[in-house]
């Protein structure tokens, strides 16, 4: 069999490639956060990113950009940054399709009611959760309970990260 036999060349090239393939499939020190996980995080309220995955996300600007695009792509409603904070302590953000309110509990001042009201109920899937991007760029997620009529309500600890982020006028909110 001649050294420049095309069959032989192809076979050896394939074996070399196969070896490289096997080598590539042995995980190294770094494992990227997959898009599948980001997609589940955005669309499945029951799915939580593990602390390790959250660490990866915060250290991976490309994955963070993918996440942002996923959340921002075709949301039910988007609530941009606000000009100024409310002086009353209550928060209200209103866009065409939804109203978000944060109302301190009278019964337990350490807790607040997050209310989401939507319009156009019959022409769209109701949102199942909201995402808040804090001014630092970190994402927070809050699952919404089933809507009763056009309203869903969650009771939050007033000092929780999500309540704080929602109270911050510079944060952005996506309903999905």
């Amino acid at each position, binding site marked *: 069999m001649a050294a420049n036999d095309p069959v032989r060349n192809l076979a050896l090239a*394939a074996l*070399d490639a196969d070896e490289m*393939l096997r080598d590539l499939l042995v995980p190294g020190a770094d494992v990227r956060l997959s*898009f*599948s996980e980001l997609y589940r995080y955005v669309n*499945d309220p029951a*799915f939580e990113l593990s602390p390790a995955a959250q660490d990866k996300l915060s250290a991976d600007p490309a994955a963070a950009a*993918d996440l942002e695009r996923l959340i921002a792509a075709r949301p039910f409603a988007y609530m941009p940054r606000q000009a100024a904070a409310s002086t009353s302590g209550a928060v209200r953000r209103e866009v065409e399709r939804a109203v978000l309110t944060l109302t301190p509990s009278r019964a337990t001042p350490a807790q607040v009611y997050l209310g989401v009201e939507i319009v156009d109920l019959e022409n769209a899937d109701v949102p199942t959760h909201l995402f808040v991007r804090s001014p630092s760029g970190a994402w927070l997620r809050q699952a919404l309970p089933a809507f009763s009529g056009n309203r869903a309500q969650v009771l939050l600890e007033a000092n929780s990260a999500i309540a704080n982020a929602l109270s911050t006028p510079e944060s952005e909110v996506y309903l999905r």
Partner: protein
Amino acid sequence: MTATIENLNLEEGKSEVLRAVLAGIMESSASDGGPRYSERVCRALARIIVCRSYAKPMLELSHLLAIASARDGRYEEVFWGVDRASTGEFRRAFKLFQGIRPDVRVSSNGVRRGHGADVFEISYRRMPLLAALLEFMIMTVGYPAVETMTAGLRQGELADENVLEAARAMQRSLYGYLKDHLPPVQRQRREHHFLGYADAHAGNRSGADVINDDVVMAYWRSYAASEDVDAKTFRSVYDTARRLVVALDAAADRFAGAYARSIGTDLEAGEVDPADVDAVVAAIDADTGPLDQVLETCGDTVKFINVGEADVLNELPLGDSTARRLPVSVLRNAVFGAVQLRISTALRRGVAPVIEIPDPAKGYYTEKLTAYAAIVAGTERLAMAALWSLFEAGRAEAVDLALALAPDLDWGQLARSAAEDADNVVSLDRAGALRQFFAVVPDARGDELAALLADARRTWRGVNRAGFRDGDGEQAVDVIAEATPWVLRLISSVRRTLDRDLGQIDWSGHEHADATSFAEMFGNLYDQGRKR
């Protein structure tokens, strides 16, 4: 796009980012914690990347994105709406696309896009790989970039040019990425050395014919003690020979067949076409045989094959030409490869090894053949039990399985009317035939079909394995239905290997000679080691 095999310098570290992406895809999980992409799909993806053979898959992906966007533009809901990227889940997902648009057709085999003669079809079996490719694209060039490149695919009915343009854009993008992250392949010394040895002893033989049982044994005897190449174990030499046999046969097949080759590939100058490399690597990939397909499809839900049986059947090279070309080496590897493994394991643990040469008087090779036959007989029994499960669940796959298990049965009108039309749309005749089939009452003393079903029921009742027990549920039936074609292929593949390749040899002569040869080699390799 061509590459010369002389250009084989490894750029260390360049591939770490790529490795991290592939690892991310391999580790992405379904909701039950299992892998979202099967190992086979991950390997196929890596093959596309390493061989840079992404042109055709990218075109397929582009068509699939166009179809998946047909409902409301949200292709992600199809690709990631399926929990596990499997054939069955994509089949279920695309059921919802039936009749959604005139240019999109859904059949039982796959989805089609286009009109008249200009139709592009993508099978459900191909979709897991295309989903992994899309995930790879997003993880490398970024989701926003992919969204931009595929924006033209989400605008209702499309001209083919839109699809081609998106495919080209994604190809360009991936080409740019791989230019920075994929190092050239490294020349593998082991295979090159073995093939050089085989060539030197080939006489006037060529191609895979240069490798036979004698060459394998002679190479091992010559180089087992060598420091230059890694050939100490018979198993490593057998594996090298096997890989070369498969690669050479697949390469010869590529050149014999009328495969479209990239323009400008200069074969005389040693250039190779990426699509050819991809095809040969796919052939080398040992895990694409029917056994792996059965194990992958069944998971822990249905135990057509248990772990012990899989270990034994793994000794048989199914789905390639190894058993035909190297029949004796197959059993030498199974028997003496295992003996040598026990020796090296003991040495690694610091234990004095015991060299256990099997007794030729007991017919150790024929014993092996009997063991393979026994396992495949058990699998056939499980296939019969599976018929009852599918029949009871009213699954159409029961008909196909019954036809496979009892091909001589007089199916009469039932078999004739069960044929599907060109579009795989269930015709009324098929519906009628199915109704007739499922109306049969199992009866051991009844006509052939009734008796077959009674046999299946009796077998079912005698089996106690996962997936074959009353109450194992609908999921088990789904898995049985999906796995059955692979099980049948496994059975026929093992039978063919045993009957055609391994059954024609006088094993008793080999048993005596090999016991002596291997005892001598093991003695040389390990007794000297112990003396040192």
